[in-house]
Every structure is written in C-alpha cells, then in structure tokens.
C-alpha cells in the first residue's frame, strides 16, 4: 500500500533503483565544468597562436616544446614548490599545535573552536588586500612593528623585496588557512580513544612520549589526508599573489598559475596559457599520486 502511494506521488525516474538516473546530475556537472574545460585546454595547447594576428595554426608539439624550454616556467615550478612546502609545513605544525591546545572539554574552549573558523569566511582576495595594507611601509602595522624591532629596514619593504616577498604572501595564506588544518586535526584528535593514552601514562610515558608514540601514529592517516588536501590547494595559489605582488618584484613570486594567468590575460596567448595550466595539473596529479602511494592515504 505504502509503496503504491509513493509511486503515485513521485515520477518513476525518482523512485528508480537503477544507478543511472542518480549518476546523471553530478556526471553532467563534471562533464560541463570539469572534463570539457580540460579537454578544451588540451585542444588549445595543440595550436600555435599568434596573439597579434589572432591566427591559430595546428602544431601539436609547439607549445609543449616552448614550455620545456621556457625558463620562466622552471622558475615558476621552483617558486610554486617552495611556496607549497613552506606554507604547508607552517600550517601543518601550527594547525596541529593549536588543535592540541584546543582539544579539551574545559569551559570556553567550544567558543574558541568556533571562533577559529572566522578567517575561513574571509574571501582570499580581501585577505590579500588586508595584508597589503598591513605590509605598507608608511602605516602598515606589520611592517612598522618589524622596523621597530630592527628586523627589517624601511628601505626594503616586505613585498617589494625579492627575498621577502614570497614570505609576505605565505603569511597571508597561513593566517587564512591554518584554521582549516586546526579543524581537521581537532576532528581527528577528538575522535582518538582515551584509554591507550591512559595505558601509556601508566606504562610510564611522559606527555611528549605519548604525543610521539601514540598521537602522531594514530593521527597519521588524518595528517596525510590534510596534507594532501591543503597541498593541492596550495599548489594552485593564485589570488594572494595576484592581489599582493602581481608576481613581483620582477618574477620573484610568480607561481605556475600566476604565470599562466599572465600569459592568458596579458599576452592573450590562450594556447600557451592552456599549456602552462595543463602542466600545472599534471604536476599536481603526479605529486599527489606519489604522496598517496608513499603515505598510503585512504579516502
């Protein structure tokens, strides 16, 4: 009886037990917004485009050969990896440390955990602009504090100096995304069973030993997953660089996506920009596959 009334209310395809109707919506989304752009980029990368004449000529290897010979690409690869590794390490260590501090049932810590998420709701471009102001040599709070501490000289502004510009961008990224690490780590820490830690303290383990021998190994899967998610995200860094330094000074902060953006929007060389973007994708895929293999990450 119930089944029949259900059938009369809903169209047949909504009550189907066949997987196809249920796969259709997300599959079509993936095709339109994922697969098609990738394939189109691949298609574009096979053409030699002359931005001035807007003429395109089918030359499958032209862009790829250019890519391999392009020193700016190799610089960008190096900068992207540096950026990813530095930001990831800082976010991981800070995230885990803050999560350990917040992992308690004491009063008030629930509010603290909720407040941690605030930076995550700020749009990245806005974050970049905020830090731009704070780095300003005449009135920026960060710059002036560093000048006062004699750690930096006003003659070498943070974002205007090649050696510090990347760090300037990393700090903004760390501010915004460490809370994300904290959230993942907290979820992991809160789910750890209590007894093994009690057993360890009876076995004679100090807090540090418990952390090294129990917390870290028990958290390893979650840490690996967090590193993977954040790593991929960091690898395609664009907004902070675009807003704060626009790849400068010179090309000191030019990451792969920033370079692709420059080629696309400034040189209007769509084919070559697509090639750089695809190369970024390939690098991410290879790096993360190796990571997944080595650290046995399971989803």
């Amino acid at each position, binding site marked *: 009886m119930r089944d029949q009334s259900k059938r009369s209310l809903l169209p047949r395809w909504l009550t189907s037990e066949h997987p196809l109707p249920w796969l259709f919506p997300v599959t079509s989304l993936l095709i339109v917004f994922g697969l098609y752009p990738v394939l189109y980029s691949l298609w574009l990368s096979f053409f030699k485009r002359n931005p001035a004449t807007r003429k395109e000529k089918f030359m499958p290897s032209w862009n790829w050969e250019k890519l391999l010979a392009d020193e700016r690409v190799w610089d960008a690869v190096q900068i992207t990896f540096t950026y990813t590794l530095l930001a990831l390490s800082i976010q991981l260590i800070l995230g885990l440390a803050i999560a350990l501090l917040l992992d308690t049932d004491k009063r008030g810590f629930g509010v603290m955990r909720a407040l941690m998420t605030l930076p995550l709701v700020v749009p990245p471009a806005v974050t970049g602009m905020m830090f731009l102001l704070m780095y300003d040599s005449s009135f920026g709070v960060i710059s002036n504090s560093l000048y006062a501490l004699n750690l930096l000289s006003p003659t070498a502004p943070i974002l205007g100096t090649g050696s510090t510009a990347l760090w300037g961008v990393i700090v903004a990224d760390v501010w915004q995304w460490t809370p994300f690490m904290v959230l993942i780590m907290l979820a992991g820490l809160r789910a750890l*069973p209590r*007894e*093994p830690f*009690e*057993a*360890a*303290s*009876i*076995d*004679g*383990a*100090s807090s540090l*030993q418990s952390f090294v*021998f*129990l917390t870290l*190994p*028990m958290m390893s899967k979650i840490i690996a997953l967090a590193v993977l998610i954040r790593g991929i995200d960091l690898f395609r860094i664009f907004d902070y660089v675009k807003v704060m330094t626009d790849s400068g000074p010179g090309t000191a902060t030019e990451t792969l996506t920033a370079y692709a953006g420059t080629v696309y929007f400034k040189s209007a060389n769509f084919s070559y920009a697509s090639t750089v973007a695809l190369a970024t994708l390939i690098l991410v895929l290879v790096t993360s596959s190796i990571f997944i293999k080595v650290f046995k990450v399971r989803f």
Partner: protein
Amino acid sequence: MASVKISRLDKAYGKVKVLHQLDLEVDDGKFVVLLGPSGCGKSTLLRMVAGLESVTGGDILFDDKRVNDVHAKDRNIAMVFQNYALYAHMTVRKNMAFSMRLNKTDKKTMDEKVNWASSILGLDDLLDRLPKELSGGQRQRVAMGRAIVRDPDVFLFDEPLSNLDAKLRVQMRTEIKDLHQRLQTTTIYVTHDQIEAMTMADEVVVMRGGYIEQSGTPMDIYDNPNNLFVAQFIGSPTMNTLECQVAEHNGVKVAAIEDTMLPLPGDRNLQVGQKIFYGIRPEHFQITPQSVSAGSQPGVAGVVRVVEPTGPEIHVYLTLAGQDLCAITRDRLELRPGDNIQLQPDLAHVHLFDGESKNAI
C-alpha cells in the same frame, strides 16, 4: 611489590560526591577485589589508585608513602583495562615492550621479558600481529602481558573479563588467579561479577553508592553479610529475603508472613511486632515433597513454580505465602510446577535483617 593504604578518601566531580571517606588496606601480595553494582565508585577508586583521577580528599599510600600527587607514570603500577586499551598501531611484541622502550631497557632484557610473558600467556605465535588481528581473549592476554613484563608494585584490573564470552571468562579467571599465585604481586581487581570476586579474591570489598559496605574474605562475606545489600549481592542464586514480622506463637517467637510461620533462631534479640527480613540461602533449605512429609518435622508449605536442574543440583523456584524464593537440593526429587512441598530452613544459617536499617541482627 607494595602495600596499598587508602585513608579517608573522597572524590567529587564538581558538587557531586562519588566516594565518601573510604578506608581500605591492601597488604603486600594480597589479591583484593572491589565488588559492586555499576555506578558504585569502584572503578573511580581504582583509577585514583592508578593516578588517572585526582584525589579530592584523603590519602593514598603505597608502602606508607603518600602518592596522591605522584603522576601515574611514576607510581610503578600496571593496569589492565576493560577494553584492553592496546596500542592499535603496534604489534603484540611492541605493545608488551612499550614500557621498557620508554625507560630505555636494553634490547636483550626486553626480548627476554617479552618472551617470558608471552610463554606464560600463550602468545608466542602472535608476537608479530597487530591487535586488530587478534580475538578478544588474545587481546586480553596481550593487555595482561603488557602489565606483567613491568614487574609492577601493584597490579590493577578494571573489569578485565567483562568483554569476554562466558567460557573464556572462566578460563581467564583461573589464569589470572594462577598468575597471581606465581607472581605474588599486590593486586586490586574491580568487577561487578560476584562469582569472579568470590573465586579470585583473598579479600572482597563490597561497595555501594560510594561507600564500602563490607570487606572480608569471600567466605566470611558469604556467611556473615553485614546488611541486606551485601546478602543479596553475594551468592548465585541470590539469598532469599522474605519480608516478615516477628510474632509469638505458642510462647515461641516466629517470623510471620500472614498466616505462615517461619522458625527463628533463638539467640537474637527480637521484639514482637518488629519488621524484619528473613534471609536464607537457597542451599539452606531442606525440601520434602508433601507426600512423604507426614509425621516428619513440620516445615513451611510452598508451591513449586519452576524447576531448573543444573546437573549437580536442582534449583526450585517456589512461592511461599505470596513471596518468591529459591531452594536448592542435591536430592534427585521428581518435582513439577504446582506441586506442594515442605521446606525446612536450616536455623544455623538464617540471617535476620532489621526492616528499617536493613542491617544484620
């Protein structure tokens, strides 16, 4: 090894007091069982001895040294947890060797100890497995192995057998007792299972609602319960406790339930009209089928409800003056539900409890 002394121990969580002024002494080498229903504070007491819970008031002494503020890691105790609390990412060998690894024992001693413990516990073939590849009983043994390799001053067991099936529980019970007899380490063992308590303990401490109700040897507690709670908690099937009133019949004091009269032991100071609980263990009844009772010593009449033969004995559940009770006989009686029988209580084993205070009279 060490003796453990607990004096005027209090524990409170916020405003809720869970342990009240407990006093307890565990002599060196003794096996003491803390027994009580869930929520009575026995595990809390054990965890305080372990150093996993803070002390609100009073003292815990190991060998007369106050350990209240000594961290768990420095108390030289070993504890077996109810759900084993093994280190899931370490093999059996590493689980057992963990404490030695922490205090930097040399490899040779470490291997010797692990091999010694694993041979005692029958874990030789499992040393390189992970806990998830073991059965419940095997995990339990690993948890015990982890405890015994340490040469602790005190062993603490927190309901270690409650997650095992019945057969394994009996087997492990014997193993733990055997282990204690071999190692002679002071042991405090928490359980809610009175059979475990009776079979293993040198001394049983019965707890309820954060108080110690009675402590003594298992037999002493079984034979001379201080109050109604202890009487009903120890023994299986539990002691019969009939609500009656003291009356006088032909010049002799008897326990009356309506018209039924139960004989009373003569040596107690009882007032006529006093409400009492008449306690008698199932094995202290003499059962006679009605048909053969004529002419013999008169007893109390009961009606059989359920008959449970267990093999060595028969448990007879019956109704006596509207109250349920159980009697055990080793005679091969042919009894059926509805049969009328005669019961003769063994007066030497009758326990009387005051109806108000519930304490033994």
